[in-house]
C-alpha cells in the first residue's frame, strides 16, 4: 500500500471517530456512533498491519490474543456500579501503551529530530503517570485503598520536586539521548502519578477519572508526534479535549476549580463521614407515612445520590416509580451532575434498571419544577440538595449548584443516619417542617415503599 493511501485511510478512521462522537449527542443514535468508532479503529488496525515496517507478526498476534481476551472478559463481567473503576483501568492501559510506544521509539533510534526529542519524554511521562494514577483511582473506587485523602507533611513540596525531576530527566533525554535518563523519567513519573492521586478524596473521583481520561488522550497525541502519525494526533486531541470538557463540567458542578480538586485534599471518602452534630429536632417518618405521602401526591421527583448506587437500589427505585405511575402520579428523576462516581454514572445505573430515559432530567432541566412538585424523594444524596449551598454564604459549599428540593411541597429523605455528607457539612434541609426523614438503607427503603404504595 502506498504512503498516500495509508495516510488517507487513517483519515477515514479519524473521520469515523468524529462522526461516531457526534452521534453520541442522542441516546437514539449513540449506539450506532460507538459502532462507527469501532469500525474506524478496525480500519486503522488493518491498514497498519499492511505497513512495510512490520516484519514479524508473532508478537502482534500474542498481544491481540491476550489483550482481546482480557478486554472482553472485563467488559462483559463488570457490574454497572463498577464502570468508573473499569474506565479508570482502561485509561491507565491506554496511557501506558502510549508511553511504551514512545519509549521503544527512543530506544530504537534515539533520533534527535526536534519533534521526537521533545515528545518522547512528554508521552512517556504522561503515559506512565496516567497508568499509576489510574490504578490508585481504581483502588479507591474499588474500596481497596481508603477513599479519604492520603497525604503526608510537605507533600506539595515533595511532588513539586518530583515534577521538576521528571522535567529534568526529560530535558536530559531530549538533549543527549541518554538512555538511563529514560528509565529514571519512567520511575519518577510512576511515583508522581501515585503521590498526586492518593490525596484526592473519594467524592472527587468524578473529576479525577475525567482528568485521567484527558491525560490518556494527550499521551496518545504526543505518541503520535513521536511516530509521525496524524491518526494518533487527531484521536488523541479528540480524547484530550473530551476529557477536559468533562473535567470542567464536573469541577463546575462541585463549584471548585480543577486546581482545588487536585491539590486541596478535600473531604472524606463519601461513605463513612464523621457523625453529625445535629441542628434541632427532625420529623421521623415510618415506611407507611412515607408511602401515604407518595401515593397521594400528584407529582413526585426522585433525587438519587451515590447512596442509591452503593446499595444497588436502582431496581427498587424503578419498582417504586412504576407503582406510583400506575396510580397516576407524575414521576421524574432529577440527576445532579455529580450524583454518581463518574460523569453520567447515575443515568447508566437507572438505565440498567430500565427507568425510561425520558424520566431522567438534569439539574438545569428540572430545577424550576420543584415549587410545582408535591413530593421530592431524596435517596442517598446529601450535599447536592443542601440549601446552605444556595443560601448561606458562610457554608464551605456555598455556590455549588444544588437541586432545590426544599422548594417542593414536601421532602422525604431516605438516609441511614443524620451524618453529614462527604463535605462534613450539616444539612439544614433535614430540620425543616416540610421534611420527613426515613432512616433506612436505600435499597430496603425503596423496596419497602414499592410494596407499601399499592396497599395505601
Amino acid at each position, binding site marked *: 500500500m502506498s504512503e498516500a493511501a495509508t495516510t488517507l485511510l487513517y483519515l477515514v478512521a479519524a473521520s469515523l471517530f468524529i462522526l461516531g*462522537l457526534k452521534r453520541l449527542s442522542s441516546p437514539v443514535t449513540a449506539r450506532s456512533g460507538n459502532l462507527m*468508532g469501532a469500525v474506524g479503529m478496525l480500519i486503522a488496525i488493518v491498514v*497498519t498491519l499492511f505497513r512495510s515496517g512490520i516484519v514479524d507478526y508473532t508478537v502482534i498476534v500474542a498481544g491481540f490474543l491476550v489483550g*482481546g481476551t482480557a478486554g472482553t472478559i*472485563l467488559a462483559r463481567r463488570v457490574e454497572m456500579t463498577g464502570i468508573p473503576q473499569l474506565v479508570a483501568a482502561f485509561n491507565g492501559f491506554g496511557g501506558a501503551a502510549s508511553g511504551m510506544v514512545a519509549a521503544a521509539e527512543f530506544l530504537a533510534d534515539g533520533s534527535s529530530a526536534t519533534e521526537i526529542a521533545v515528545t518522547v519524554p512528554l508521552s512517556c511521562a504522561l503515559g506512565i503517570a496516567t497508568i499509576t494514577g489510574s490504578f490508585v483511582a481504581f483502588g479507591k473506587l474499588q474500596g481497596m485503598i481508603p477513599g479519604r485523602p492520603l497525604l503526608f507533611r510537605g507533600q506539595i513540596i515533595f511532588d513539586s520536586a518530583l515534577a521538576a525531576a521528571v522535567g529534568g530527566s526529560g530535558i536530559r533525554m531530549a538533549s543527549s539521548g541518554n538512555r538511563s535518563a529514560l528509565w529514571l523519567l519512567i520511575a519518577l513519573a510512576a511515583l508522581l502519578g501515585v503521590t498526586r492521586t492518593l490525596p484526592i478524596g473519594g467524592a472527587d473521583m468524578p473529576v479525577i477519572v475525567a482528568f485521567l481520561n484527558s491525560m490518556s488522550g494527550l499521551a496518545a497525541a504526543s505518541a503520535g508526534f513521536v511516530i509521525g502519525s496524524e491518526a494518533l494526533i487527531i484521536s488523541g486531541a479528540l480524547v484530550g479535549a473530551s476529557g477536559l470538557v468533562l473535567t470542567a463540567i464536573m469541577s463546575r458542578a462541585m463549584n471548585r476549580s480543577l486546581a482545588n480538586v487536585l491539590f486541596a485534599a478535600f473531604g472524606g471518602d463519601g461513605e463513612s463521614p464523621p457523625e453529625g452534630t445535629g441542628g434541632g429536632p427532625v420529623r421521623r417518618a415510618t415506611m407507611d407515612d412515607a408511602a401515604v405521602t407518595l401515593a397521594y401526591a400528584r407529582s413526585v421527583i426522585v433525587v438519587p445520590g451515590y447512596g442509591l448506587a452503593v446499595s444497588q437500589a436502582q431496581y427498587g427505585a424503578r419498582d417504586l416509580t412504576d407503582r406510583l405511575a400506575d396510580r397516576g402520579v407524575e414521576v421524574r428523576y432529577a440527576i445532579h451532575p455529580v450524583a454518581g462516581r463518574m460523569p453520567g454514572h447515575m443515568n447508566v445505573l437507572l438505565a440498567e434498571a430500565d427507568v425510561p430515559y425520558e424520566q431522567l432530567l438534569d439539574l438545569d432541566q428540572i430545577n424550576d419544577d420543584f415549587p410545582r412538585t408535591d413530593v421530592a424523594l431524596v435517596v442517598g444524596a446529601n450535599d447536592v440538595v443542601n440549601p446552605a449551598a444556595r443560601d448561606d454564604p458562610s457554608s464551605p459549599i456555598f455556590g455549588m449548584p444544588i437541586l432545590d428540593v426544599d422548594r417542593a411541597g414536601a421532602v422525604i429523605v431516605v438516609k441511614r443516619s443524620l451524618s453529614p455528607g462527604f463535605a462534613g457539612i450539616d444539612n439544614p434541609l433535614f430540620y425543616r417542617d416540610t421534611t420527613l426523614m426515613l432512616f433506612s438503607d436505600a435499597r430496603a427503603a425503596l423496596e419497602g415503599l414499592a410494596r407499601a404504595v399499592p396497599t395505601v
Partner: protein
Amino acid sequence: MTLAIGITVFVLAAFIGFEVITKVPPQLHTPLMSGSNAISGITLVGALLVAGRGDLLSGILGFLAVTFATINVVGGFLVTDRMLEMFGTRRRLSRRDGR
C-alpha cells in the same frame, strides 16, 4: 511530518473535539467517556509498528503495548456498547422486573 504540521493538526482536532463533546447531553457522559477512552486506544497503531519490528527489545515493549492498547480498545468499545444497549432499547415490556 513536520512539528508545525503536527501541532496544526492537533489544535484543529482539539477544536473539533470541544465542539462535538459539548453537544453530548449529561445523561450520556459515562458512555462518552468510555467510548472516547476506547478511541484513545488508537495508540495501538504505534504499538503494532513497534511490536512488528523484529528485534528483542522492541518485541518486549511492543508486546506489552499491544496487549494494553488492545485491552483498551476491545474492552472500551464493548462496555460502551453494553451501556448504550440499555439506553436505546425499551426492555420495559420484557421481564427483568423485580430483582
